[in-house]
């Protein structure tokens, strides 16, 4: 009987730890966070989110998504965000998604620097062919680390872009070829 009580308490504690460690937010709470204005002279970065490659590969796109692809390929035009100490490319993306109410899903964890962006604005990896997904560029170059491990500096320009051919369509003859 004693054993029963101890083990039951342990299980309840374990569940409680999981629930408490999870960060629950209502929709309004989530979107209103981090809404701030950039003042002159603050450290700032510029972020843009684009999916032009989808427009070139409409035949491969999941038909359910067709109404959700912006006609000019711009999910978010170049926008300035204040840079805080230790901000990564992922942090800025989360902040941009919040202020502009862009749907975004990731897997992995920020704390372990293993974040993988699965989808932005309802366009997911594999939504447009087997080689499609989201990737990012900082100042026109591809960092060799994940977005949650990529610390930013003042004046950096971050571009989140969608690829349909494992980045080949972005690197060859595109804007990123320098």
């Amino acid at each position: 009987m004693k054993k029963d009580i101890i083990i039951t308490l342990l299980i309840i504690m374990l569940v409680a730890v999981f629930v408490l460690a999870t960060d629950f937010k209502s929709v309004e709470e989530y979107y209103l966070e981090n809404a701030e204005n950039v003042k002159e002279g603050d450290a700032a970065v510029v972020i843009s989110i684009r999916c032009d490659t989808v427009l070139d590969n409409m035949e491969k796109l999941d038909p359910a998504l067709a109404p959700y692809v912006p006609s000019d390929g711009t999910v978010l035009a170049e926008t300035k965000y204040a840079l805080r100490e230790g901000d990564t490319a992922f942090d800025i993306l989360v902040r941009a998604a919040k202020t502009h109410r862009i749907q975004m899903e990731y897997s992995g964890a920020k704390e372990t620097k293993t974040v993988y962006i699965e989808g932005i604005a309802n366009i997911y990896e594999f939504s447009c062919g087997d080689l499609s997904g989201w990737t990012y560029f900082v100042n026109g170059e591809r960092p060799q680390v994940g977005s949650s491990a990529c610390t930013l500096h003042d004046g950096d320009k971050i571009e989140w872009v969608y690829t349909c051919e494992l980045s080949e369509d972005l690197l060859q003859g595109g804007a990123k070829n320098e």
Partner: protein
Amino acid sequence: MNNHIAFARFHPAALFSYYLCLLLFTMFTENPVITALSLLGALYFCLFTGTARENLNDLKFYAPMFILVALTNPLFSHSGATPLFFMNDNPVTLEAVLAGVNIAATVAAVMLACKGFSRVMESDKLLALFGKASPKLAVVLSMALRFIPLFKRKWRELCDVQKAMGYFRGESRFSRLASYARVFSALVSWALENAADTAASMCARGFELEGKRSFSLFRFTRADGALIAASLALSAPVLAGFAMGKASFYFYPRISELPFDIFSVAMYACFAALSLLPFIFEVKEALKWKYLRSKI
């Protein structure tokens, strides 16, 4: 033979083709109407053919399973345009919740349909059906279908033996769990050995020999032909509807609208008739029996 189930009196080939049609449609669609109809048909049939005790036990298993599957989807799938709340900065969306309910309903429908299938198709019917074409397939299928009931019976037997030996008594709930784990491990090793034994014994009896005839009680009658014809005739409009995209439905990013016109209604009516067929047949036979008895 399961004599109290009227539907079980059909020829194995007719029953097999009926369940093949039903399961194919249920498994390969996201359409919630088709899923709901299929779930209703399978549920009614299982409730009608099972005893009150069996039904209660089934409920104890299926209700938690349904809830678990339905809840798991929104925890891991964050796609969808309508966020309800945010969990670690990932949205929990209305679409994912509804898709979870749909997946749970599909799983329950398929499992209940398979339960109905195993109630009307015992191993002798499977052997009669596949014995000629592929004896190996027939043995594997009949062993697989027989596996769970056999497992349950042996489980009870092992528990009784352990109780007789003095285990399980005066133990706390969690030490009893440990005892169940011991029984389970014994059960698994027994099952492996039993399967090998059965296969070896079938080999020794020459189940694969050429020119062997198997004993079959089943005669293909006009009613069996009618059942096959009905399954095919009801499947054809549904298949046509699938091909024309009348049944297409998706949950992400926003729940799509169900096409609603005469053709789609006709398609749903056909599928409802297909899925409710065993239940309707069962009720009809039960009423007939009651009527005939009342005249005696």
